């Protein structure tokens, strides 16, 4: 659309039907030539009213909804939901359940990182990387299918523990996959991270200021790409993360390339964590005895729980009211602030061709903005 009063300006919609958008959302761009003057984020294409629906449901009924809040990475939602319910009800889970949860969360992080790699490389036309990454992600989904019965939505991390024990030989399969993925990462370095076409496009683009990042509540790779060692697994450890030995990768430049390097290193750290979990996996029960779900009441209290997802801190506010229903569950993922406060600022002055590149580097997931 050309604005007739200022004929230089053109307004276009980037999304929702666009291969370079990170989901069902759109960004309205005001351009002069190819340079962005103003960006406005629009969501609302995927509002499903989950937070309202959960008010009408018992814990076991709400459990089937929460994994659908974020499509690429459902497990942090399940973990948050379980942790919030357990904290309100005063439930302690077994050691084996904690280890299995960490294994599921790290596998989920790996699968989300590979999906990101496909999106990020696709945003600049490196489609071969995307096809490799999606194929490798499928190997992780195969493991999820064997463990939980589902490839994308697992409904596995339930309050009180996890739903099923590990199948025979499962840990060996995880070990084999980790060896394979470690080797593959060298190839990804060659074809993607160290590829001149990616470096030329990503270095110096979408630079985020460190002080602003802290003050505005940005999370995940956005903070770590600015040199801040922010990670919920280290800052406020949950499950068994304080017993594991791993590093928080950081970079200083604060641009798209720095965030990509952080993600690459995080994949290696996740593999490292999974190796430790597999070698230390204790024996024992996976689920404690829970009250009958129809009589399972949450006390009148509220809490705030958080885990580190592949895109940064992912938190839930949950309030019980003494009945079987959950009074309020509010989701706070990285996308609301990254998709509005950050993206609308960051795109000003950027080139039209860099929009998809910048968006992908921020880890924005629209289903989680609208819930």
């Amino acid at each position, binding site marked *: 659309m050309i604005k007739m009063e200022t004929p230089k300006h053109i307004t276009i919609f980037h999304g929702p039907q666009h291969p370079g958008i990170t989901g069902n959302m759109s960004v309205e761009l005001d351009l002069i030539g190819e340079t962005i003057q103003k960006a406005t984020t629009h*969501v*609302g294409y995927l*509002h499903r*009213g989950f*937070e*309202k*629906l959960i*008010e*009408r449901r018992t814990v076991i009924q709400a459990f089937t909804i929460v994994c659908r809040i974020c499509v690429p990475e459902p497990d942090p939602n399940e973990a948050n939901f379980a942790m919030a319910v357990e*904290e309100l009800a005063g439930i302690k889970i077994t050691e084996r359940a904690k280890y299995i949860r960490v294994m599921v969360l790290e596998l989920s992080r790996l699968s989300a990182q590979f999906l990101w790699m496909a999106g990020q490389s696709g945003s600049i036309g490196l489609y071969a990387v995307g096809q490799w990454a999606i194929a490798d992600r499928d190997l992780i989904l195969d493991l999820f299918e064997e463990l939980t019965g589902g490839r994308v939505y697992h409904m596995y991390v339930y309050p009180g523990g996890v739903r099923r024990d590990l199948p025979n030989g499962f840990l060996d399969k995880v070990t084999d996959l980790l060896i394979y993925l470690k080797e593959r990462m060298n190839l990804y370095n060659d074809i993607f991270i160290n590829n001149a076409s990616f470096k030329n496009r990503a270095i110096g683009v979408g630079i985020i200021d460190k002080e602003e990042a*802290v*003050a*505005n*509540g940005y999370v995940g790779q956005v903070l770590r790409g600015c040199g801040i060692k*922010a990670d*919920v697994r280290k*800052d*406020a450890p949950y499950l068994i993360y304080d017993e594991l030995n791993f590093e928080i990768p950081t970079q200083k430049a604060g641009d798209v390339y720095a965030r990509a390097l952080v993600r690459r290193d995080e994949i290696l750290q996740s593999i490292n964590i999974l190796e430790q979990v597999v070698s230390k996996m204790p024996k024992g029960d996976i689920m404690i005895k829970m009250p009958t779900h129809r009589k399972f009441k949450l006390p009148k209290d*509220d*809490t*705030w729980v*958080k885990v580190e997802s592949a895109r940064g*801190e992912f*938190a839930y*506010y949950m*309030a019980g009211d003494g009945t079987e229903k959950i*009074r*309020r569950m*509010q989701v*706070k993922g990285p996308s*609301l*602030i990254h998709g*509005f*406060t950050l993206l609308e600022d960051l795109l000003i002055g950027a080139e039209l061709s860099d929009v998809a590149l910048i968006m992908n580097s921020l880890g924005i997931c629209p289903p989680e*903005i*609208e819930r």
Partner: protein
Amino acid sequence: MYSKIKNQFATPEIEIKRNDLSKVIVKRDRLFELINLLRLNYSYVTLNAITCADWIEDDHFALSYILTTEDRKHTMMVQALIGRDSAFDTISHIFKQAEIMERDLHEMYGIKFIGNQNLKELSLENWIHTPPLRREFDTLKFVNENLTFRDGRDDNVDTKVETKRLRALKKAKKLAEEKAKDDKNGNS
């Protein structure tokens, strides 16, 4: 810190929930004063979220501001109870990210944040009904009154009716078989 907050704000409501989480309930007119104290004196520099729960039976919303320290090791939940139909001041002049959080709460609860210039619609398009996360909004009633249901395909069957019919058929078949067996035995 806790004793200073208790003395200065005359609030007994400080709850230590976990090592990394505490909750303070404060009167609504002193909420921002407490947030500023935490921000300037105790390094709670990041606003992570603004959450809301509707306690319709007590006629108030519980509005919680989630603040995290600069080293991200401790979270403070500062809560104020506000009337369900009252307006509230914005905090977006201190925390930029509050603008979008308040816009979300305005849409879902109808809370008017005075001073926030950007309270336009977020994910609900042309919504004219009660803000949906208020407790008086009944989803089932809304669906029954506003949406139409498709009948489905012409050959679609009601599973309850179909199950009954199949059971009756099975029963009749079994009776017929028994009768035939009896007749055969009687004839022989």
